């Protein structure tokens, strides 16, 4: 392990010398709009670039997740996965063209997750340049349908249909460098829709207001008593509705997530909110629907798990301070399948999820060296014996 760690700073220098290729990959893939469920064009370019970089195999699985495989030296060792989600929250009408300055890249989706995908595409060339061979196959997967209503379908399908055991995985997110996610909260993502008939019949003489109805839902949610143990919360994240300032809103939508490190608690809170929604719908005589958009189960590695310990060692060697937080990304699906995995960030940035999201260029090399360090740790066998609880 120490041998690997000692090489990391040298890796940073080599990776920095490949800056143009890495940024080119980030830009060429990131400038193609890929809203969730409409990733086809980005998949095409992803495959094209992977093929150009001469991975040993380049294909899509049955769900159209594009995959590149760098063959390992051992036929017996299970593969190691590196994944980044391809989809973004931005529609194709948004300007996706990036601006590059001396130390920054700016544009829609750059932080979620163009940098991650661009780095994934660059790994074959980087590993070649670093003259690194692994015992395991390295599977580079750009997974689709991750965000929002996508509900991590791409990664779920990929892992469900993957025929052989998987040795470990690294999930790549653009930001923040220093992030070390090795556990995931249980989560249910919901939407409450309120629709009020716009008919002019007598029964609608005193028409209710959809926004005020949802306001009542929010108030009732806020009144719920949430425990500190298990750690639990409800995040009210999104609202929309109405037509114009002087007209009663006929429809409105509220989006929220229930998060807890206990699946049981998530379910319990969900049932409470379901009762709230049904009660308000009944009392106000409105069409109020609670829909589940996605859900994930709580799962974790222990801090003492060799993969976590190795990752911390890699990060410290690179002078990074590991900050741990739960992740609701692809990580959750790996952990749910008892595959050791971590999520790591590549660089620093600002204006996350905005059209002018900006990432720094300079830290990217360190972010990539970190990923390679973790891949080497997994490949060295340090994480093989440990089973997830």
């Amino acid at each position: 392990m120490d041998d690997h760690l000692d090489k990391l700073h040298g890796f940073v220098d080599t990776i920095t010398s490949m800056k143009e290729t890495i940024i080119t990959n980030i830009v060429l893939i990131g400038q193609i709009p890929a809203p969730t469920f409409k990733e086809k064009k980005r998949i095409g370019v992803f495959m094209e670039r992977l093929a150009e970089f001469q991975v040993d195999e380049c294909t899509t699985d049955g769900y159209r997740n594009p995959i590149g495989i760098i063959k390992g030296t051992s036929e017996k060792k299970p593969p190691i996965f590196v994944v980044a989600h391809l989809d973004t929250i931005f529609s194709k009408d948004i300007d996706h063209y990036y601006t590059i300055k001396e130390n920054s890249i700016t544009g829609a989706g750059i932080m979620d997750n163009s940098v991650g995908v661009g780095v994934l595409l660059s790994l074959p060339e980087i590993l070649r340049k670093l003259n690194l061979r692994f015992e395991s196959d390295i599977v580079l997967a750009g997974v689709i349908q991750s965000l929002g209503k996508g509900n991590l379908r791409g990664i779920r399908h990929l892992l469900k249909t993957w025929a052989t055991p998987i040795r470990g995985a690294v999930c790549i997110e653009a930001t923040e460098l220093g992030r070390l996610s090795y556990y995931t909260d249980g989560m249910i993502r919901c939407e409450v829709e309120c629709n009020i008939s716009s008919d002019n019949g007598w029964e609608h003489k005193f028409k209710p207001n959809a926004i005020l109805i949802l306001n009542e839902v929010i108030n009732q949610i806020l009144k719920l008593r949430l425990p500190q143990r298990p750690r639990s919360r409800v995040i009210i994240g999104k609202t929309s509705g109405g037509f114009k300032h002087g007209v009663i809103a006929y429809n409105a939508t509220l989006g929220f997530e229930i998060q807890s490190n206990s699946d049981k608690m998530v379910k319990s809170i969900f049932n409470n909110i379901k009762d709230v929604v049904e009660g308000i719908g009944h009392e106000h005589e409105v069409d109020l629907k609670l829909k589940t958009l996605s859900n994930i189960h709580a799962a974790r590695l222990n801090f003492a798990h060799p993969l976590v310990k190795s990752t911390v060692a890699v990060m410290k060697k690179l002078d990074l301070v590991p900050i741990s937080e739960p992740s609701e990304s692809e990580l959750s699906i790996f952990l749910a399948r008892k595959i050791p995995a971590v999520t790591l960030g590549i660089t620093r940035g600002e204006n996350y999820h905005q059209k002018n999201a900006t990432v720094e260029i300079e830290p990217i090399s360190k972010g990539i060296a970190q990923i390679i360090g973790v891949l080497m740790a997994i490949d060295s066998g340090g994480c093989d014996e440990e089973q997830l609880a």
Partner: protein
Amino acid sequence: MKSNWLEKNTFHYSEFNNLNRLVEEKQRKNLKISLCLPTLNEEKTIAKEILIMKSELMTRYPLLDEIVVIDSGSTDKTRDIASAFGADVYEAAEILPHLETFKGKGENLWKALYIAQGDIIVYLDTDIKNIHHRFAYGLLGPLLLFDHIKYVKAFYDRPISIGKSKIRPTGGGRVTELVIRPLFSLFFPELTQILQPLSGEYAGVRELFEKIPFPIGYGVETSIILDIYEKWGLDVIAQVDLDKRIHRNQDTRALGKMAFAILQTFIRRKRKLGLVDFKEDLFDEMIQYNLVKNQYMPDIYKIEGHERPPIIEVPEYREKFKR
């Protein structure tokens, strides 16, 4: 017009995406290739252009030998950014400094011929938001693979399905459709086959560029086409579909000035060839009007239409390139 030039000399960039083959041809013919980027306040787009070209066509495939930026005196960070990303950056005014100084795209292109080392020169505008290395290799393909082709012009948006019943507009801009195409139709019908004569992306061999004059301003694209057509004929020219090009839109007033410069260049060429004559000299001011406090105020913009001679006539050039 009896010409099958459009069918013979029109390509799509994807016909040239085997970059190894292009590199082999370049090496077999022992050629040097320069990418020249004329700039004026392009800090938002210049880095991306240099970076992608360098990564794809220098590091990964050694197709380009150098990237040269010729700047017209940008007041933003264009020059610093271009240098930081590894281009060779020059201020136009500092090249051949003993000559009278002019400012304009054509001036930068002309001076690039003195600075760049290449046997083939690729000129690309630097305001392209969706820049991709196809913009360069697409133009280089015909020059490297077909010996008779000496100058290649870009066009965009897959405009015409030749041989099929489905026809779409050619995708030319307003100045192309309202100025250039009518002029070409009137005077040089063969040249109407060049679908987007004003596109700012083209490549050619040095032996051609060095023997033609360069207007310093907007007229340079028209002038290059007219001169090459006049001296070497249409068959040395090819055009390549580079798919989509996303760039800043210019307002109608700016396009008016562009149209003025193009007409000026066109008429001068016709005069020089003895094809038309005027009893008086042309005026050199474009006059537009603004409504200011209920009064129409003229906005006069001088477009003198200076022109650089063929650079082979410049002694320093002849000495440097042993001509």
